[in-house]
């Protein structure tokens, strides 16, 4: 019956066609610069995509597609299984809301730019991600991977008038190409073992590969995909590229593009390496999980530490993406570690936590980037020091942004809390690990994880508090208006999903367990989820977390307090007046705490990490009197230890090598011929000598 339905409505083809339409329309209808022709096909396509992926997840059966007839590579097959469908669902939801949002947001660029180019790349970008996730062979995987990288590169440098954006684009291009090379090497190594380019053959031959090959494949894939995911120390491109792109593109990149790297890693580890298949000895892979946890913990702490001192909203959000990817890596790593000790339920549970966090991050990070876009749309700046007081002019944007902030901070009733809860329970289960050293390391990693959560709260208090609350720091904000309805609708959709996933975790949990075919103990009820602290069976202690009921109690207490206060205290008046501030009086906007001063204590505590340097410049009225200062300028600048200590030496050594090779480039033909001559002689000798 399912297949019948499939034949009646060719959903996958429809999805592809709508995105292609979106891309073509934007080239064809250059006259209609309003943006509607580009994004409406995208919206339709994303709805189809959501339906398609939900269908696959609910049915639990994978779908095969053939787009083109058999060609020379005989590889043009597409496969959508549960894992792919889960990622497709993410792409669908995010691209739906982002394209609705873009209908309004594109007006930012309509006056002085070719929005048609934007529409073309935007649609191609999403389409390449969809096809990448559903591709079933090395050839199409790499082609769409490169297409995704290239289109996103062009979107990053869309604002190419700005020199720094071009630089960001170049850094991004270099890093992503390095990553692609490694991924290609890893996949080709697999195909050399199986003798075919098709993923199907990888699955079949997964158990026969030697552990040596598997380890090499893993290392290559880990670095390659890790570059795209933005793990520390391969993250350098991310904080440049994400803020440079237009905000809707940043939302797409941060919410789903970096997740495709996680998709690739899951495919390689769980699908092509036979981890957990029962045939191979899982214990060999414990160091994979350990690497994941370590890198994840480092990424999350480093990401959030950079995020908290950042003044630019979009850069702060970009760093926060690094942190969230780190958390997802921790979850995946715990899953692998548990699996290698044959703790199957715990492994499934940790996987669930990681994937729930992935889902959440896609949702709330797109919301936050769209909110940042809304700020830029009205104020044309992302610098927090110039914002403030937006909550009065933009009430809806601020409400949606607040939902995003509450979610990402992991506070109850919002989705971030659920995944962090699941992550914490996975950490608590680590005491089942028989290896003491690994168990203790996981315990230390849990401290890093919790530190991350603590600083995330501070980060987003700062971002929301400085940009939306208090007095406006520039005059333009006094006259600010709310953004167009389409933008609000785009943000509203994801904000709603944040609340739904936060209040009824059951939905997300069921979806993920279906998609990934996870074996969780069956004692789940509709509104509560009973996690396993100890192994299923023996002493299954319950800790039912029924968030809707907690919320009901919360609200009823709120109402009861309201009533109680009016009964006891009677009616009292409220008077609006100046800010008191201990009676000092006369406050202006420059006397408020700024973004950098707000995070200064944290900067001070971790100053060995930031390595801040302070430059004080004072201009005196008269050189004889050093106490009478006309003005004082203080500048705190932080060293970026990764760029200065790691990439700096590498880049400078590369340049040194170039300098040396310059000597051969004299311009004399004779010398070049000599080079060729020497090489030929050497080759001939080598051929003769080799057996």
């Amino acid at each position, binding site marked *: 019956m399912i297949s019948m339905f499939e034949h009646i409505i060719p959903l996958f083809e429809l999805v592809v066609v709508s995105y292609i339409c979106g891309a073509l329309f934007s080239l064809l209808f250059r006259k209609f610069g309003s943006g509607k022709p580009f994004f409406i096909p995208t919206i339709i396509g994303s709805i189809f995509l959501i339906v398609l992926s939900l269908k696959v997840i609910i049915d639990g059966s994978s779908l095969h597609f053939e787009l083109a007839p058999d060609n020379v590579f005989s590889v043009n097959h597409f496969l959508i299984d549960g894992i792919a469908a889960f990622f497709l669902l993410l792409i669908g939801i995010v691209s739906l809301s982002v394209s609705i949002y873009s209908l309004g947001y594109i007006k930012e660029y309509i006056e002085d730019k070719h929005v048609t180019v934007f529409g073309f790349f935007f649609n191609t970008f999403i389409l390449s991600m969809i096809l990448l996730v559903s591709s079933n062979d090395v050839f199409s995987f790499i082609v769409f991977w490169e297409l995704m990288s290239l289109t996103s590169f062009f979107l990053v440098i869309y604002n190419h008038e700005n020199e720094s954006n071009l630089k960001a684009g170049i850094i991004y291009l270099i890093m992503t190409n390095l990553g692609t090379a490694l991924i290609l090497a890893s996949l080709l190594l697999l195909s050399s073992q199986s003798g075919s380019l098709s993923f199907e053959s990888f699955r079949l031959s997964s158990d026969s590969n030697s552990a040596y090959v598997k380890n090499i494949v893993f290392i290559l894939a880990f670095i390659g995909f890790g570059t795209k995911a933005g793990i520390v120390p391969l993250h350098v491109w991310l904080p440049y590229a994400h803020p440079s792109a237009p905000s809707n593109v940043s939302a797409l990149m941060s919410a789903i593009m970096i997740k495709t790297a996680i998709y690739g890693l899951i495919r390689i580890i769980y699908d092509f390496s036979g981890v957990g298949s029962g045939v191979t000895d899982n214990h060999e892979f414990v160091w994979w999980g350990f690497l994941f946890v370590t890198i994840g913990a480092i990424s999350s702490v480093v990401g959030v530490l950079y995020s908290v001192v950042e003044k630019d909203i979009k850069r702060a959000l970009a760093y926060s993406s690094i942190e969230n990817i780190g958390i997802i890596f921790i979850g995946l790593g715990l899953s692998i570690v548990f699996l290698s000790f044959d703790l199957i339920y715990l492994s499934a549970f940790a996987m669930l936590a990681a994937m729930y966090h992935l889902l959440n991050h896609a949702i709330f990070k797109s919301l936050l980037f769209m909110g940042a876009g809304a700020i830029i749309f009205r104020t044309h700046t992302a610098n927090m020091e110039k914002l403030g007081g937006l909550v009065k002019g933009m009430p809806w944007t601020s409400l949606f942004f607040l939902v995003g902030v509450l979610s990402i901070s992991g506070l109850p009733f919002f989705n971030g809390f659920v995944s962090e809860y699941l992550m914490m329970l996975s950490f608590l289960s680590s005491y089942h690990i028989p290896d*003491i*050293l690994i168990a*203790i390391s996981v315990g230390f990693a849990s401290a890093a994880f919790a530190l991350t959560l603590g600083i995330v709260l501070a980060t987003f208090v700062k971002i929301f508090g400085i940009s939306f609350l208090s007095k406006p720091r520039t005059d333009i904000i006094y006259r600010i208006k709310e953004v167009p309805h389409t933008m609000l609708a785009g943000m509203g959709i994801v904000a709603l999903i944040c609340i739904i996933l936060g209040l009824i975790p059951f939905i997300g949990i069921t979806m993920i367990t279906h998609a990934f075919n996870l074996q969780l103990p069956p004692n789940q009820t509709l509104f509560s989820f009973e996690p396993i602290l100890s192994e299923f069976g023996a002493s299954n202690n319950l800790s039912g977390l029924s968030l809707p009921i907690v919320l009901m109690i919360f609200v009823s207490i709120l109402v009861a307090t309201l009533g109680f206060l009016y009964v006891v205290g009677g009616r009292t008046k409220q008077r609006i007046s100046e800010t008191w501030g201990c009676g000092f009086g006369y406050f202006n906007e420059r006397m408020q705490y700024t973004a950098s001063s707000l995070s200064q204590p944290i900067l*001070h505590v971790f*100053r*060995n990490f930031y*390595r801040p*340097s*302070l430059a004080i410049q004072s201009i005196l009225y008269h050189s004889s009197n050093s106490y009478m200062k006309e003005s004082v300028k203080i500048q705190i600048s932080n060293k970026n230890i990764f760029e200065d200590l790691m990439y700096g030496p590498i880049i400078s050594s590369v340049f040194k090598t170039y300098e040396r090779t310059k000597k051969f480039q004299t311009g004399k033909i004779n010398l070049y011929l000599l080079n060729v001559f020497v090489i030929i002689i050497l080759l001939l000798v080598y051929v003769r000598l080799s057996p």
Partner: protein
Amino acid sequence: MIYNNILIFLSGTLLIATLVLVIKREFSEWIQAYKYQTIVLSIMTGVIGYITNNWEIYLAAIITFSLKAVIVPKILIKVTEKINYDFKNETTPYISIRLSLVVSTILVALSYFLTQQIQLGEDVIATSFLPVSISLLLIGLLVMIGRRIALNQIVGLLILENGLFLFTLSLTHGISLIIEIGIFIDILVGIVISSILIHRIGYTFDNIDDIHQNRESIEYTEEDD
């Protein structure tokens, strides 16, 4: 079994006392915390004496208490009375206090990991106290490395010495009393000599910092802690 639990609890208490020692910055606070640590140590010594039923160890416990928890702190306080406060207060340690706290937990994990290999058999005291004593040794060294001020390095030495004492005691269950008393007197003499030295240096140079502070270029001069 119950002994085992009590011993592990005692080693936990000793480690907490050591942690409290590590976060101190000011010399008199150091001495105070060192006193607490030594009191815990002498209780541990007493417990070892009770388990092994050896009166010499009881005596060692009493000597430990009276010498290291009473006399040594008194001497140290007395000699350093007149030294300028700036030279007793650790403001810019080489290894920050927070880092040294985290590193000392790693050292504890390390010493438990290292001693796992050693076959100690049924010896309850050795199995529970040996790792703690090694971690005390390591933490003492860490403190000596990390601190800039010479006075505070003496306390690092004292932690190290406490670790050494526990180490020998847990492995041998009390060497001959004569030797132990000899060691105690050795410590006393060491403390007296070093305090005389501190005293003299303090008067002569009015600065007992082991390295010239002005050679350090401090990048972030806003506020040191």
